[in-house]
């Protein structure tokens, strides 16, 4: 069970935060990679809404799998999107992980912080959030998480 990266996007698709662990760096710093991830998820969300059977309301979670990775995304009602990239055999419960990152980490450390403004659209630099996130992810991975 290996977590590769976490991205946080706002409602308009701007990447507010990203962090990578365990493996070669995916993001080359140009901002292309987060945009690709967001774009793909946004379109997949639209397709899912069309394909969904009648009478079931979406709960904000979506998982995409290929033969080499699994992408888990959670969209909160406020529009924040949390995207987790993990290996294909992720054994944990990605919904619980993402919800924890949102409710216990993001809301507590960033939204409630008087010095952070996640609505500005710029990258959020919150050492507390990063530290808590690394600690949480380290706990999940069995202590194997190393920041790339």
């Amino acid at each position, binding site marked *: 069970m290996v977590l590769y990266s976490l991205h946080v996007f706002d409602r308009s698709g701007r990447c507010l935060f990203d962090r990578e662990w365990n493996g070669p760096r995916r993001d080359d710093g140009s901002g292309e990679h987060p945009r690709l991830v967001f774009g793909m998820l946004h379109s997949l969300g639209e*397709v899912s809404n069309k394909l969904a059977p009648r009478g079931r309301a*979406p709960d904000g979670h979506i998982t995409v799998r290929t033969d080499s990775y699994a992408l888990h995304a959670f969209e909160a009602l406020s529009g924040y999107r949390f995207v987790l990239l993990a290996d294909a055999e992720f054994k944990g419960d990605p919904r619980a992980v993402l919800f924890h990152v949102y409710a216990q980490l993001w809301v507590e450390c960033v939204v409630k912080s008087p010095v952070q403004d996640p609505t500005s659209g710029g990258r959020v630099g919150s050492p507390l959030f990063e530290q808590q996130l690394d600690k949480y992810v380290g706990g999940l991975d069995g202590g194997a998480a190393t920041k790339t």
Partner: protein
Amino acid sequence: MYLQLMIINKSGGLVYNQDLSPQAAQLDSNDWLRIGSTFHSLHEIARSIPPGRSSGIVALETSSFALRCLETITGIKFVLTAERGTQVLEPVLRMVYELYSDYVLKNPFHDLEMPIRCRLFTEHVTELFESFHTTGTNANARHQFFTRLR
């Protein structure tokens, strides 16, 4: 249970779609064409997310349904949507692929990559999914599927 079946050719055009249940989303043919080509593009984009090599989208899961995609080496994609909790997904796609090879590819009047209008294919696919709904078990359906050849 199963909701919809789609077959997308290697250029992203939808060549076949069939509703498999009354619970399935009711969409018109333009919507289906759009979904087919959008899915094709997203399937490709998913390859570039990781740094190494990756296949395209194999599965998609939401709270209301699950989707599986089988991409053959010729580039054709068989896409199946089903309600959450449906047990058998990948083997069903392989069965549909077999039916495609038998009743579409071997049909001398079928043009490759064009919309599929082969009565025998449609009949066999309908029969296959009806057998799942009536028997409800994997073992029975597989047995029935393979005995049809004799």
